């Protein structure tokens, strides 16, 4: 059984027929070819599969594609515009938050959502918001610094 889904991904309208049970992460990676979104734990804990749905971060490994019908999805591929990286992406590069490619897409989308919600977060607020994005390089200090400096406009 399949369901007809119409949604925007990174500003572009997509219409597709997905099996009812298709997870959003599989649609994003295998139907749309956007492989920046990673599958980590598959149970909503690690944050590697983070995407934004109508601006809010969600675990795409826990979401049925059908439930995203009508929404606006942003993946890591959608943050840069016309080849220009978003400030938070520049911040991650400049301050060493960018370590390997597994958790980084989710980290950056989570950080982007944080700065949309709270443009000048304290260190505690950064930690509370980011605690759902795990980095096994254990490089949290650099990630926190990247977010803090981006918020300060120093990118």
């Amino acid at each position: 059984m399949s369901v007809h889904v119409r949604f925007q991904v990174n500003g572009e309208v997509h219409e597709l027929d997905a099996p009812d049970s298709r997870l959003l992460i599989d649609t994003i990676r295998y139907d749309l070819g956007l492989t920046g979104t990673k599958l980590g734990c598959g149970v909503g804990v690690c944050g590697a599969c983070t995407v934004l749905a109508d601006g809010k971060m969600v675990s795409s490994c826990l979401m049925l594609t059908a439930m995203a019908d009508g929404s606006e999805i942003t993946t890591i591929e959608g943050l840069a515009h016309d080849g220009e990286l978003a400030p938070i992406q520049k911040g991650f590069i400049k301050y060493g938050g960018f370590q390997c490619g597994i958790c980084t897409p989710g980290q950056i989308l989570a950080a982007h959502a944080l700065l949309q919600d709270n443009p000048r977060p304290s260190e505690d607020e950064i930690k509370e918001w980011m605690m759902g994005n795990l980095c096994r390089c254990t490089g949290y200090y650099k990630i926190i610094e990247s977010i803090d400096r981006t918020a300060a406009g120093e990118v």
Partner: protein
Amino acid sequence: MIPFELHVPTSVDEALDLLERFGEDARPIAGGTALVLLMQQRLVRPEHLVSLGQVRELQGIEAGNGTLRIGALSPHRSIETSGVVRSGWPLLAETYRRVATVRIRNVATIGGGLAHADPNQDPPAALIALDARVGIAGKHGRRELPVEELFTGYYETCLEPGEIVTHVSISRPPRPIRYAYLKFLPRTADDYATVAVAVALDVDDGRCRDARIALNAAGPTPIRAHAAEDLLKGQALQPELLRSAAATVPAIVDPISDSRGSANYKRRMAEVFTRRALEQALA
């Protein structure tokens, strides 16, 4: 995941019709944060999913006539950040904030959480301490009952087949209460509790008029600490009394040994965290 058919009703009646029509083969789905996992692990295998996401009546948070009404579809995050909830029922906002991570709270709903009925979840103890009621709709009508009476066992509630949670309602306490929700997290900040305690105290001039205390992760359902409440009521809240009240807790909890601690350890920690929650509420 086993293939299934998804239905997207737009009213409560339509949702109830679908649930009745497909009977045991159907399940409601709200945020999906619990159900999608259970389906992937093949612990549940519904052939029909009835999505509640488009049912207007189940949405929104309102306060009127001193009563808070939270629609079943309200995401945890919306409860935590609601100005109305934060000012009138701060214990609730603070408890929802302790659930998992922002990313999960953006999606997990109050109704889905209650129906899921995992005794390790956070909201039930606070809802019970606040004397919250849960609204339920089924083909045979609507009813409201204390949240405390909803839970019957591990992942079990008194919801009849085909019934759905429609809302949670809470009266505003007549006077500001002293409260605390303490979640013992020896492992990571986003974990489920090893044990957790919610307390709500109505205190007048150092004397306790009323007390409600409930624990999570301490047995097959959330557990109300009646004996501790009875010790406090009508008394001056001296440190020694708080200790005595907490000391009644190990006898009423029934935790299991798991990766978060042995049953004995949790029983001891239930006492320690009850005492600390009382102290924090009064500090």
